[in-house]
């Protein structure tokens, strides 16, 4: 065309918007998660941050709440109990869970049934399960009555409200988080490797030691990590079935909040969160950890 177009008044804004319009498809994923993102930000992240801030600026900006922890005997004891419980529970889950994961992977027709049994705890609330354990472990609970009837004890044992009760109940609740990542790792082992090992002269036990176990270590690492971090934050179960002296960090935090000791509660929360995040960050590079997270979130 020969005539030169005059820039119209609306040409400028349109020109600025055009690249945005052209690229709108790129932003679709962001647009899809935006509602949830905003929800989480406003109702979860901001309150958490505000809470954590209290450990630093209550009453004025200070690190004294943190430095005080170093001489705090109650904190030291609680931290130790929490850590200790988590270690025992994680080990318990590992010892009980590994064989179950193997069974799950080996089973053919039974696999769906085993999976349902493993996942059953997922579909019941922690509160309900903790109540169930109170019923089972109580002075006149199923376990004591059973042992009495069998004549193995003469009077009811104290199981409920001991550390053992906490450990038993927590292992039950956390088992799936151990089993699923391990089963996932086991499932990825090429069956021809097991045949090869056997053909090369390895007995079933040697095959387990030298092939199955090392190749499932990524799942073991992931399951251990997940279980341990989750165990650190347990509150309801130890509060309900645990011993009176077995105070975990979460319980201590709740206590302090009840007493409106906001700064102290916030400091403890920050420590708990930092411990969990620290462990996750340290283990982030372990192979299979990413997989395990995906598994547990199915």
């Amino acid at each position: 065309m020969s005539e030169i177009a005059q820039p119209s008044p609306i040409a400028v804004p349109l020109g600025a918007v055009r690249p945005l319009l052209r690229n709108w498809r790129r932003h679709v994923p962001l647009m899809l998660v935006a509602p949830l993102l905003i929800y989480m930000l406003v109702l979860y992240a901001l309150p958490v941050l505000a809470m954590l801030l209290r450990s630093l600026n209550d009453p004025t900006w200070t690190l004294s709440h943190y430095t005080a922890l170093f001489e705090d005997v109650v904190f030291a004891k609680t931290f130790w109990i929490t850590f200790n419980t988590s270690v025992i529970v994680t080990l318990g889950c590992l010892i009980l869970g590994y064989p179950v994961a193997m069974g799950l992977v080996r089973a053919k027709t039974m696999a769906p049934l085993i999976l349902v049994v493993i996942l059953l705890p997922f579909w019941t609330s922690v509160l309900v399960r903790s109540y169930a354990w109170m019923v089972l472990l109580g002075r006149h609970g199923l376990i004591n009555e059973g042992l009495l009837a069998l004549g193995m004890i003469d009077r009811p044992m104290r199981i409920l409200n001991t550390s053992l009760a906490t450990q038993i109940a927590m292992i039950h609740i956390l088992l799936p988080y151990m089993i699923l990542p391990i089963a996932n790792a086991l499932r990825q082992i090429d069956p021809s490797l097991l045949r090869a090992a056997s053909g090369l002269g390895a007995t079933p036990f040697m095959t387990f030691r030298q092939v199955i176990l090392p190749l499932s270590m990524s799942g073991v690492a992931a399951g251990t990590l997940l279980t341990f971090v989750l165990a650190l934050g347990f509150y309801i179960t130890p509060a309900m079935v645990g011993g009176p002296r077995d105070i975990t960090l979460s319980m201590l935090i709740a206590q302090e909040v009840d007493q409106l000791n906001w700064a102290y509660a916030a400091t403890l929360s920050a420590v708990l969160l930092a411990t969990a995040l620290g462990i996750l960050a340290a283990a982030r590079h372990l192979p299979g950890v990413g997989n395990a997270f995906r598994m547990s979130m199915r």
Partner: protein
Amino acid sequence: MNRTDRGASVSLAELEKRYDRVNAVDGVSLDIHSGEFLTLLGPSGSGKTSTLMMIAGFETPTAGDIAIDGTSVVAMPPYRRNIGMVFQNYALFPHLTVEENIGFPLKQRGVPKAERARLVAEALELVHLPGYGERYPRQLSGGQQQRVAVARAVVFKPRLLLMDEPLGALDKQLRENLQLEMRRLHADLGITFIYVTHDQEEALTMSDRIAVMNDGKVAQVGSPEDLYDRPSDRFVAGFIGESNFLPAIVRGMEDDVVITECDGALIRAMCPGRPASGDRVTLTTRPERLRFADSAWNATTPQNRLSVTVTEAVFAGERCRYMLQATDGTSMVLKEPSSAAIRRRAIGERAEISWSVADTILV
């Protein structure tokens, strides 16, 4: 020690493997001699892998017996059988280095560390991979992984080596190189090889004997020449190499040569049996053994002759390939070396073809 003493003899008797409804292996009887290179050849699903798995001990036969060196091994777990095995996907342990992979069978046998290192180095030498010991399997090419798998399977000096399509995943060039290496390895070790493949060319070039399998059964066992020149049935003739099939009617016998009538012509064929006059039979010949009767070519052996029409002519470099049709409609293939001295035939041209009686088999 005598060369053949190093290899195990394997005897399969009426071996059968039944899955739900399929008879994967259906009464296989086979005697594999000490030190032999025997190939199980057959189309997909013919039961080759199943047979091998039973010999290795990974599957239990539903009937029949497997004897190694005269002793039944059916009740013996795989880890006691002392058999080397190379899998199609190599099955190298991904968490172990090449050295540890090859040392694996030695470790299970309690071989001390120093001795193990020496044997592993020897095995790496054998498969031309010295210096690769520290690598992990994923750091090797397919061909190198295959060699490691072979080294691992022979390092503990088994008397029998089983291989399930060990070259199946490799490209043609590499396959041909490794085929030669396998032959050399077999000659060096002197142990018995049982080799599975569905590639007939590979089977023909490598084996002392081939067992052709079809539908869970052994169709024919014999040397490559036996199978190619004297196939026992139509399946073997069609599966190994290319074959022409001619319907014919038996008219009489002359010693071990049968005289048949085919498309109005008398055709003589080799036949081990004694078919009755009037029987309807099928004759088979190889395309490269047919000739145009008028080309300059003096036959000194008895010949068969047939009139045909050329229906298709394809130039394929070293050969010309003609599709022919007899007057009764039977189509045949003729392959002729390409040469400037030989006249190319045109489509529609009528011609007389001839071929040796010795190359005609009644199946």
